[in-house]
């Protein structure tokens, strides 16, 4: 087998694009003031900030003033949930609806809110990994203040009917947040048309820099800061703005959105070829709906093996992949996402996520199929729980 290097862990993080690096470098060298400073160096920085804000807003279909820049997706999720919960509590509304397979940034924040006296309903995500708008509607109570449903799941890649869920929420007068960290730059987004009140995004998932992201908050919703201090971001997020990263994020988002249709069209057949190839492995099961999924996401469970050893052997074959999500890799417990779609513990341990970059080739897809097939067979051959 010839040796290749394939980075198939783009859901964990993407390589930063040259355009984003260039934008950051220019900013670091030329607009290095503090955007809050009155002097010309500061005002030059303020202009660069306004430019980036305007461009990102345009890509989401919102107004520049509706964006709060954060340090990433986790911070955006935390602020959205805590902020809306506290607005709700002020009106006696302490019920929140979300799903069982949200990112930990959402689930752990909800757990903390439960300790503070909120009630949380986690919707079933079914075996196909898709929430239905009807179930959202049925779960809404008079005291519901927030519905938070992720746009696309980070492990199994399934895409939720966001616009429909948004409509249900709008009709019921309940605010709707979506964690769109895996969707922005990969799926079309228009917050107004999709009835989204709050949306989280993170630049490093679309070839932008790490450590920056944004929270869209519809005009008229006053969200308390999570980080208190200076008056940056119109008093809603303190701290000197991470200007070079924000400018890099704008460059990366422009690039991603400009190529969105092209990349989607390229990736879907390659993704489906990979799914078909891996489906030929005995006792392999695709996680999540086969079609309603991110163009680059392929997620499988293989019975009789354990994910980490699979990953390490694939790494030896030049393939960077993951089992579950990156940020839970220190944990011994199986992925909560796989349990949520009904995989039993034994099977959930044997999971593999391949998240493809837009430049993946057919040859690479075939190499991936061959490498995974061989490695699964080898691990089963040394496994006491597998008998052919």
């Amino acid at each position, binding site marked *: 087998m010839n040796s290749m290097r394939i980075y198939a862990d783009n859901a964990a993080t993407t390589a930063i694009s040259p355009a984003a690096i260039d934008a950051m470098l220019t900013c670091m060298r030329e607009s290095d003031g503090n955007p809050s400073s009155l002097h010309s160096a500061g005002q030059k920085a303020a202009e660069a900030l306004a430019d980036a804000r305007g461009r990102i807003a345009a890509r989401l279909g919102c107004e520049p003033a509706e964006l709060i820049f954060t340090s990433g997706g986790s911070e955006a999720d935390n602020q959205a949930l805590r902020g809306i919960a506290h607005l709700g509590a002020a009106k006696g509304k302490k019920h929140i609806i979300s799903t069982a397979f949200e990112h930990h940034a959402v689930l752990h924040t909800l757990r903390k809110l439960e300790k503070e006296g909120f009630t949380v309903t986690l919707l079933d995500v079914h075996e196909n990994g898709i929430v239905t708008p009807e179930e959202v509607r049925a779960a809404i109570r008079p005291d519901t203040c927030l519905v938070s449903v992720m746009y696309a799941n980070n492990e199994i890649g399934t895409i939720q009917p966001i616009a429909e869920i948004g409509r249900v929420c709008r009709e019921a007068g309940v605010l709707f947040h979506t964690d769109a960290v895996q969707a922005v730059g990969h799926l079309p987004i228009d917050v107004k048309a999709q009835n989204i009140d709050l949306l989280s995004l993170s630049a490093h998932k679309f070839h932008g820099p790490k450590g920056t992201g944004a929270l869209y908050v519809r005009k008229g919703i006053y969200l308390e800061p999570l980080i208190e201090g200076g008056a940056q971001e119109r008093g809603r997020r303190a701290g000197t703005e991470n200007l070079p990263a924000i400018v890099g994020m704008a460059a990366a988002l422009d690039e991603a959105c400009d190529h969105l249709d092209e990349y989607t069209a390229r990736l879907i057949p390659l993704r489906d070829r990979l799914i078909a190839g891996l489906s030929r492995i005995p006792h392999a099961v695709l996680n999540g709906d086969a079609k309603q999924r991110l163009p680059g996401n392929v997620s499988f469970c293989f019975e009789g093996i*354990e*994910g*980490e*050893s699979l990953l390490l052997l694939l790494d030896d074959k030049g393939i960077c992949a993951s089992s579950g999500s990156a940020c839970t890799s220190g944990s011994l417990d199986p992925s909560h996402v796989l349990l949520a779609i009904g995989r039993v513990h034994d099977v959930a*341990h044997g999971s593999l996520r391949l998240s493809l970059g837009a430049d993946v080739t057919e040859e690479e897809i075939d190499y991936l199929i061959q490498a995974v097939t061989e490695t699964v067979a080898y691990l089963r051959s040394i496994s006491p729980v597998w008998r052919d």
Partner: protein
Amino acid sequence: MALYSETVMDHFRHPRNVGVIENADGVGEVGNAKCGDIMKIYLKIDNDTITDAKFETFGCGSAIASSSMATEMIKGKPVSDALAVTNKAVVEALDGLPTHKIHCSVLAEEAIKLALKDYYDRHGIDYDKKVFPDCENCAHCDAHGV
């Protein structure tokens, strides 16, 4: 600061003693699939000496490496030496394991002990029950809430 030491990676990539011993004198299996780790060790024992040892493992990199190292450590040794192999000794031989992977070395120690217990049982040899693990009541499994 790679995840695993060179030695772990070597034993993981090239595990020694993989396989099954037909008509083994003792077999020990620990762990369970819900936890994501099962280790099965087969022993051939002649004249109180372990003449062969093999393993099958379902588990992470360090579980495979621990099985490989542990079987290496007891091959050719008297049963009494094998009984004295602790998980600590396995970890040391592997040049260390990350904290949250120490339990894999515990599985290896326990699998050896259970295989030896099995050998004693089959051959009607008397032994002190307390030196052997009681996997039915393993706190490890409980800790994972399985």
